[in-house]
């Protein structure tokens, strides 16, 4: 007879067999070194006109564009900025469309202007010199030889390292998985950090890896179906904690984790609280945070203070540019201590996290 399936009794139920990883020695507990970059000084930015050029997806993508938007919103409310303008890139658009977007903002008198996404690097290289008095910034990218472009880059590998540690501690099968959206260098940093973190915490751990599409085919960030199937494959191979860096495809990863009753780690923002994946929220144990909002806010503030030099070179663990989310309460005090311990070691430089995946 045909029986209705109720979620959570899939292949996952067999995974509880073994008792987890043999863990490496826990790091020494950290002394509280909270990155106190934001001492509450009053800065007035009401004279600034801030322009934001988003990458594909724009405001509302529940991912890093949204994170940038959050930074902007914070700047609006805290720095008193009145005039902002936000423009968004279209999928598959030509290079000159990005240039036009930037130029449009610059010639309308916006400054600072932030290009969200490394895709703006080439365009800024052209446009920034045309407007030497405008202050530009680029998220996730570096523009060589343009003095008026501030790079806002992140140490995704450091945050991912902690995600790897979480995965290793949460796995019962000592087997975890990583699903990358598109095989580009940026996603490689997540991959590399995750692997190093997991291996550091549990040297014997097994790691599954899958990129949905190769470099140049950006549909890998847009295909939850593929994300789901790749995740299911990893779960069937034995992985019971999955970390994704796959944009919208990550929703498929969560759903696969949910139906097999295994755990998942989100990316970029605190996905536990994200409306679009609310159905799967109970399997999301944490998220690797990439604080684009912090970077955007700090940059705008620095411009307002006219003190760009104060910005960090890299938004890393030290400045809370990356981190991990604790919503949902799946990270207990023990694990938190461990994570803080590793975090301290990374900040102190005792652990150097590689940004290139091994394979």
């Amino acid at each position, binding site marked *: 007879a045909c029986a209705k399936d109720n979620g959570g009794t899939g292949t996952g139920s067999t995974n509880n067999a073994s008792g987890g990883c043999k863990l490496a020695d826990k790091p020494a507990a950290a002394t509280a070194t909270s990155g106190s970059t934001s001492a509450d000084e009053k800065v007035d930015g009401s004279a600034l006109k801030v322009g934001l050029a988003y990458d594909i997806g724009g405001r509302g993508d529940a991912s890093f564009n949204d994170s940038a938007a959050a930074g902007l919103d914070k700047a609006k409310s805290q720095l008193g900025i009145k005039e902002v303008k936000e423009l968004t890139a279209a999928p598959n658009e030509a290079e000159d469309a990005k240039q036009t977007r930037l130029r449009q903002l610059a010639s309308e008198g916006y400054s600072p202007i932030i290009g969200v996404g490394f895709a703006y690097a080439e365009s800024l290289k052209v446009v920034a010199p045309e407007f030497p008095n405008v202050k530009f910034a680029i998220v996730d990218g570096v523009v060589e030889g343009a003095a008026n472009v501030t790079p806002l880059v992140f140490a995704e590998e450091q945050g991912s390292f902690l995600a790897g540690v979480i995965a290793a501690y949460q796995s019962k099968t000592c087997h975890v998985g990583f699903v990358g959206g598109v095989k580009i260098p940026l996603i490689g940093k997540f991959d590399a950090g995750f692997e190093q973190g997991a291996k550091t915490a549990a040297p014997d751990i097994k790691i599954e890896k899958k990129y949905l599409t190769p470099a140049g085919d950006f549909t890998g960030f847009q295909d*939850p179906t593929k994300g789901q199937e790749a995740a299911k494959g990893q779960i069937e191979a034995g992985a019971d904690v999955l970390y994704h860096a796959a944009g919208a495809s990550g929703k498929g990863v969560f759903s696969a984790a949910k139906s097999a009753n295994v755990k998942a780690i989100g990316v970029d923002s605190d996905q536990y609280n994200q409306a679009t994946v609310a159905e799967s929220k109970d399997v999301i144990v944490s998220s690797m945070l990439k604080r684009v909002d912090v970077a955007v806010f700090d940059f705008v503030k620095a411009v307002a203070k006219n003190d760009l030099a104060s910005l960090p070179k890299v938004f890393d663990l030290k400045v809370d540019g990356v981190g991990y989310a604790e919503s949902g309460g799946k990270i207990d005090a023990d694990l938190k201590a461990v994570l803080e311990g590793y975090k301290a070691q990374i900040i102190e430089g005792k652990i150097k996290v590689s940004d290139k995946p091994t394979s």
Partner: protein
Amino acid sequence: MSTSLMNPSEAPTTVPPPRKARRIPGWATAMIGVAGAVVLLSTTSYLTGVPQLTSTGTIQTAVRLALPILLAGLGGLWAERAGVVNIGLEGMMIMGTWGAAWAGYQWGPWAALLAAAVFGALGGLLHAIATVTFGVNHIVSGVAINLLGAGLTKYLSTLIFFPLSNNPRESPSVPKFDTYSAAGFSDWLGELEAQQRVGLSDVAGILRGLVTGVSPLTMLAVALVIGSYLVLWKSRFGLRLRSCGENPVAAESLGVNVYLYKYIGVIGSGALAGMGGAALVLNPGQPGYLEGQTNGRGFIGLAAMIFGNWRPGGLLGGAALFGYADGLQLRSGGKTFLALIYGAVLLLAVIVIWQLVRRRWFAAAGGVVAAVVLYAVYYSVDEVPSELTTYAPHLVTLIVLAVASQRLRMPAADGVVYRRG
């Protein structure tokens, strides 16, 4: 593009090819083919030690991935059997995804399915108006519909979904169908699969994949394949519809309203493609509508239909092959792909022996060379680069077509603009 001037009813000027009567009926050939594929896969799986080739999970993945392609392909079938080439499947599918999300988040999955069919059918209607009433070149109209479908849904999403989901490219999440399993049978198969017995476990794995976690949509799609066969080949309506694709002038002369049947075929085509879109939206992994989520599956559906020789059974095979190859590469990547190469070597070996029996020395030699090359690849490489395995389904489709294309036969008046009188 002046084919419309040709008279398809021209008396035949060549000797009718005196073909041998077909001794084996189509369904039997299909069964033999399926059995052969199973044997090949289980042998490969045994020899290479890669159980994923026939695991339950792989088969389930294949089913899920094949579903939208299958439905789009069925859409293609209905249009082309009525004589209208439908390259606009992708656009109709996109319309379907939007419709499914729009109705789905409000009224649930069945409404989603219905709305997807309606939205797809609207695309079909437009295609029918252009191609049947105005006699526009079918390809031109299809390309335009792909553009329109993409533009319209983007525009509508910005208007309607943005306020709800805060994202102009995404809908709120849509409730999904429950899935069903043949409870006892499935568990028994599971035990069998776990015993790792050669052959038996493979068959069990495949069967289990087919009867476990089945969504009503999958059942519906299978029913639609069978239904399409029955309707198109065993009913009066189907006979009339197919006659419009074979010789519309003759059909009209017998009182068949060719325009009407073409309209029905193309609108039905759109509805099926729209349901293919719904299959994407209602896939458990999908939150709902997502811009760009069809990702060329409409085109793949068209390919599956041509692959399947404009027949529902063949199209099922084409969609299954694509879904299987895609699922395999997604789930297990390069190593499994190597196992497939090994399987290809085995297949070639069988073909070579067959050619030798038939004394086709040249073909046999070609087979040997290909087998040796593939084996060399298998032997020398540890893992195929993921850049290349991602498109394994495309490669497999291309190769199979290169081998089998000459047996394909499309409806005689397919793509020919028909004008009454």
